[in-house]
């Protein structure tokens, strides 16, 4: 473990066609840490990921990536035209890691060995995710970047996926940076939750809710081990256009997060 952060963003902003997509992003991702980004549609979550992994260059501010940072990226979705004959096996060799043992091991790790010879177009949503995860693992990353990994998967599938991710994290010790599609669910073990709406609304540690009676009644105690709810209060509200509505400052800020100061941007 080094003390250099894997990725650090300092006051980074991104504009495209004179439109502000992200502004005032400050973020530090350390080795072995889990950061979950949540936020409404159009908040710029995917854009933030792409900014952090270097696909977009910030218009202002700075993004620094540690030299030892090796990223395994899992996209939000993958559409492959039916005209392309492609087996899972061939798809995985595209990672550049052609070691057959490594491929088989990655498939075992994500529980998808039985899919090795399948055509990739025939996979279900959950199966495809596992294969995408295996592809990311073949890069032997110390940072897994996952864009809405639980999207299009039912609650059971989400739970399995989060279990799988925490297993991978324990085994490989890699950091995880992910976007959650749900405002209230983040993976257990998350060190930092970032609530995004073009700027970082607030960030902090998620509260453990596995003991909360209403939560247990809804999802059962088993689920509580793997999914936690991040409860937080905003010190401001958003208008429909995403701007900040004034005059709604709530007085009871909790310690679980720090709200950002909107006077600065």
């Amino acid at each position, binding site marked *: 473990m080094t003390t250099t952060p894997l990725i650090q963003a300092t006051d980074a902003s991104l504009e495209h066609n004179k439109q502000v997509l992200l502004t005032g992003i400050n973020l530090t991702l350390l080795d072995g840490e889990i950061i979950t980004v949540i936020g409404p549609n159009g908040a710029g979550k995917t854009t933030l990921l792409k900014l952090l992994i270097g696909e977009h260059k910030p218009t202002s501010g700075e993004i620094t990536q540690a030299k030892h940072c090796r990223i395994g990226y899992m996209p939000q979705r993958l559409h492959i035209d039916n005209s*392309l*004959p492609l087996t899972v096996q061939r798809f995985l060799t595209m990672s550049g890691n052609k070691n057959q043992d490594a491929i088989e091991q990655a498939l075992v790790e994500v529980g998808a060995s039985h899919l090795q010879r399948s055509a990739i177009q025939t996979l279900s949503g959950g199966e495809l995710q596992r294969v995408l995860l295996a592809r990311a693992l073949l890069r032997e990353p110390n940072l897994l970047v996952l864009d809405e990994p639980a999207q299009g998967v039912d609650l059971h599938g989400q739970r399995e996926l989060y279990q799988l991710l925490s297993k991978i994290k324990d085994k490989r010790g890699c950091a995880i940076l992910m976007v959650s599609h749900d405002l209230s669910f983040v993976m257990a073990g998350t060190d930092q939750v970032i609530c995004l709406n073009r700027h970082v609304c607030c960030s902090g540690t998620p509260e453990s809710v596995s003991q909360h009676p209403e939560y247990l009644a809804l999802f059962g105690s088993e689920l509580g081990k793997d999914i936690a709810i991040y409860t937080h209060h905003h010190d401001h509200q958003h208008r429909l256009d995403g701007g900040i509505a004034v005059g709604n400052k709530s007085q009871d800020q909790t310690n679980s997060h720090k709200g950002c100061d909107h006077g600065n941007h």
Partner: protein
Amino acid sequence: MEIIELILPSLIVGLMLAAICGPLGSFVVWGRMSYFGDTLAHSALLGMTLGVIFQIHPVIGVLAITIAVALVLSVSQQQRKLANDAMLGIIAHGTLAAGLVIASQLDTVRIDLMAFLFGDLLSVNYQDVLWVAAICIILGIALKLLWNNLLSTLVSSEIAQAEGIPIHKIRLALLIMLALLVAIGMKVVGALLITAMMIIPAASARRLAQTPEQMALMASIIGVLAVIAGLLSSFIWDTPTGPSIVLCACLLFTATHLKQST
């Protein structure tokens, strides 16, 4: 024996084109780019007329224009201000119209429009063979070097980018390769049918393949068969060569699909 000597250059050119069309045509099918091939072919007439005006080899004129079109399309793809097919339509018909207008003003030389539209494989000479061979070799080497990056970019540009592949350069490389292919394909099957040579063998190969590489190889084989059959039938029944080749490719396409459904 005389017949073989007569058609040998045509046969060589046709076979080389069919072989290289296999992998490149597969990319056209996978990437749904057939209209892109048409656009390049339409713009080729402008290249031919420019070649006449500046008294350079028509292949160079066609190359210059098709590569220019590929560059313009690559830029417009990244800007995304206009839907891709609208942009393709504007460039295809704009350059075709310009080519026709300029061709009509050339008093001294008549451009053979029929040869432009449908190709004139039987008129190729050994100089053409050299041109086509040179370009096919360039394309073959480029494909070999870029194959994995091309495929990765096609399958998921997001993963490819995260893995450090320069996806915009790779896409541009594919467009320029297609521009080169169109420039040599003009001679064989003509502007109207060059896209057919790219997509029909590849589409026929789809059901016979389990991997991208198998499909590319099968497409080359099917293309080669179509060229041989087309040239033969053209000789036997005195039919136009380009359309005969395309027709044979269509028959092979039907055959591969019938085989599967029984």
